[in-house]
């Protein structure tokens, strides 16, 4: 455990980080940068973000607080937080290798063997090894526990058959964290699941790109037909797949393992929409002179401010006595629904120009708002739909009975 830095040490580091990101952050490479790792569509975007992650890592501002022996910086997590603040400050691009750094990495650091740590950690930090996630299946979008992809032990290998879907970067990944069914007779659906660190470059594993409602690509469906992987890929032991998967979700919520740094999803900058509103004209008058728009915009400001302050309040136990799970569990629901509403609302600022889309020279902000609205569904649907989220809040924060 690295020592807590002195204020002076931290200040120095923070200033270095600030200077570095000030100098190195490219905000407009001349093409649209993805707001989330789920929106990487073109080779251009992929290559740019991969290079960017490596560059940040090599500068020491990614994985700074992960163990030195596996490729991290070995520093106290305060350092990494300072670096991440600098990235935010300069609106730096996202970190590409989200599943690796945010999900697989923490799991391996927490429960992996020495060999596994040696083998996987550095490659995910420098973005050499891209990771993807194989939880959802076409027939079990919301019902992860019901995963049906079959993994049958055969000697020192597992034979995989089935399909996974919504795999971000699946066509570019070297590894997949895979939830598969090893036991079809288990007493309940969860106990039959096992968790694998699955190599993607294997015969019998193929991917096909999924065209999103935005017209872009970003997800793939992955097909497994008699794909053979080494039994060493099993992680956490047979039958423990569900608990491993749940752990990755905890890490994602920031539990236990030190933060890898950076961010995988760019939060919509509210002020952007205020700017759009301020610069929009409706029937010859500034949009924000229209009291109906003002009123709605004000309500959104109230919502946005509340969600931003919630992130601080979550760390204030004195204000988290009653229903302590409420704020953490509602965050995804509230934030993703707000962004959907807000981006949809922004279309109403654009008058006839709302008819244009990404790619037309007449489109306002190059169609950013239309695209953001359509993309917003990836967050209200992915990672548990808003409907599922409401069940979770109701059952785990409010103590209401399950819906059968």
């Amino acid at each position, binding site marked *: 455990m690295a020592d807590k830095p002195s204020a002076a040490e931290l200040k120095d580091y923070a200033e270095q980080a600030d200077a570095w990101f000030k100098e190195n952050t490219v905000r407009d490479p001349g093409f649209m940068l993805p707001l989330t790792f789920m929106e990487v569509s073109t080779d251009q975007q992929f290559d740019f973000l991969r290079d960017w992650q490596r560059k940040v890592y090599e500068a020491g501002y990614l994985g700074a607080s992960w163990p030195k022996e596996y490729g991290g910086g070995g520093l106290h997590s305060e350092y990494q937080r300072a670096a991440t603040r600098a990235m935010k400050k300069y609106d730096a691009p996202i970190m590409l290798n989200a599943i690796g750094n945010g999900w697989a990495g923490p799991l391996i650091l927490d429960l992996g063997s020495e060999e596994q740590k040696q083998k996987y950690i550095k490659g995910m930090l420098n973005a050499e090894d891209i990771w993807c996630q194989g939880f959802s299946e076409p027939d079990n979008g919301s019902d992860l526990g019901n995963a049906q992809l079959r993994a049958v032990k055969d000697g020192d290998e597992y034979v995989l058959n089935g399909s996974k879907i919504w795999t971000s970067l699946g066509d570019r990944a070297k590894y997949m964290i895979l939830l598969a069914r090893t036991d079809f007779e288990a007493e309940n659906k969860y106990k039959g699941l096992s968790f694998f660190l699955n190599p993607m470059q294997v015969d019998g594993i193929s991917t096909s790109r999924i065209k999103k409602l935005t017209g872009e690509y970003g997800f793939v469906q992955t097909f497994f037909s008699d794909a053979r992987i080494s039994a060493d890929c099993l992680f956490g032991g047979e039958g423990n797949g569900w608990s491993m998967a749940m752990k990755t979700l905890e890490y994602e919520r920031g539990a236990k393992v030190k933060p890898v740094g950076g961010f995988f999803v760019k939060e919509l900058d509210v002020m952007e929409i205020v700017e759009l509103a301020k610069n929009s*004209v409706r029937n010859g008058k500034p949009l924000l002179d229209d009291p109906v728009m003002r009123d709605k915009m004000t309500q959104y400001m109230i919502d946005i401010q509340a969600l931003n302050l919630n992130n601080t309040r979550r760390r204030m136990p004195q204000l988290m006595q009653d229903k302590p799970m409420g704020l953490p569990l509602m965050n995804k629901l509230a934030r993703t629904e707000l962004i959907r509403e807000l981006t949809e609302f922004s279309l109403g600022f654009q008058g006839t120009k709302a008819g244009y889309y990404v790619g*037309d020279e007449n489109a306002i902000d190059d169609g950013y708002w239309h695209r953001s609205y359509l993309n917003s569904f990836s967050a209200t649907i992915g990672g548990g739909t808003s409907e599922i989220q409401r069940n979770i809040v109701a059952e785990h924060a409010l103590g209401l009975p399950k819906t059968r």
Partner: protein
Amino acid sequence: MDNLGTIGTTEEQIELMDVATNFCRDKSPVEKVRSLIDDDLGYDPDIWREIGELGWLAIAIPEAHDGVGLSMAEVVPIAEQMGRNLMSNPFGSTTLAAQALLAGGSEAQQAAWLPKIAAGAAATLALREDNGDWDLSNIDASGVESGGTVTLSGKKQLVLWADSAELIIASVKIDGAVRFALIERSALPEGALRRETVIDETARSYEVTLDGVTLSADALFDAGRTRETLEKIELAAGLLHAAEMTGGAQSVIDYTLEYLKTRKQFGKIIGSYQALKHPTVNNYVEYEKARTHLYSAANSWGEQGRGEVAVRMAAAQSHSSYSTSADRAIQFHGGFGFTHDCDAQLHRRKAILSGALIGDAAYQRSKLANLLFD
């Protein structure tokens, strides 16, 4: 309030509803709609010919000009069924051009163009500009008149189906006043049309550069008719898009219902979950309100005062209903809803374009408020 619309139908309207229901369903299956997305023209010329032969373009054109002599009320069920089946073609733009001619065109101009349109020629309106304003009198494109000819300049945006239209009726400012100019597409210089990328992939829209277009002064509508022409166009467009959006709302709700009745999660048909079921009921209720307003607008069309109130109510309700139903359709289809293969996005995108063209629900309400409360 005595300016609220009433509801009613005509026999012809209902007959056309039956014909259009079958025709649009048979001729515009969604596979066809999707194949046309990648087609330059954007519609099937044979079907367009059939539409002409069915006389649908002649419905609201007086018999004196080889039309059927009915009104926009009878056009409504056709537009509704086209919207319901995502059937995209110059029907709407042509109908609106004919309405513009009827409102603002001279006897000669009407005689020159209405019979052609009634016989199946496509036409369109060029009204919108870079200021994005829904107030169509706020324009910068202009014309200079001298010695019997007019020279135009400026750009018009969101001109639907311009490449298919034989006639483009453009609004331009001449001596500071808004005028309408009849432009034959064939008279446009090379490169005057730029295909635009619009949010609705089933539509075709063009930016029209008027620079250097010259026409004879008698290709202009009379200056005295500008105001009523603008009003007629706005109302006819509101009614037409309300019809399309209402049909679209019906179809996206049915599409969602189909999924809710067949898709299983956690071992249950998802349509049995009230989280999906009740919002769908709410969307359905809003759709039925929209359809009621639509046929009230059709019935009140042409009545001074009432007509505008009824049309704007239909436009406002259909736009909000279509938008919300399509938004929920994406969400309720889960992962599939996020794909381009799911039809929900086709509807969501279409609703956005329609709102952009005629003014969204909030805009319609702001106009309505003046009619209702002042």
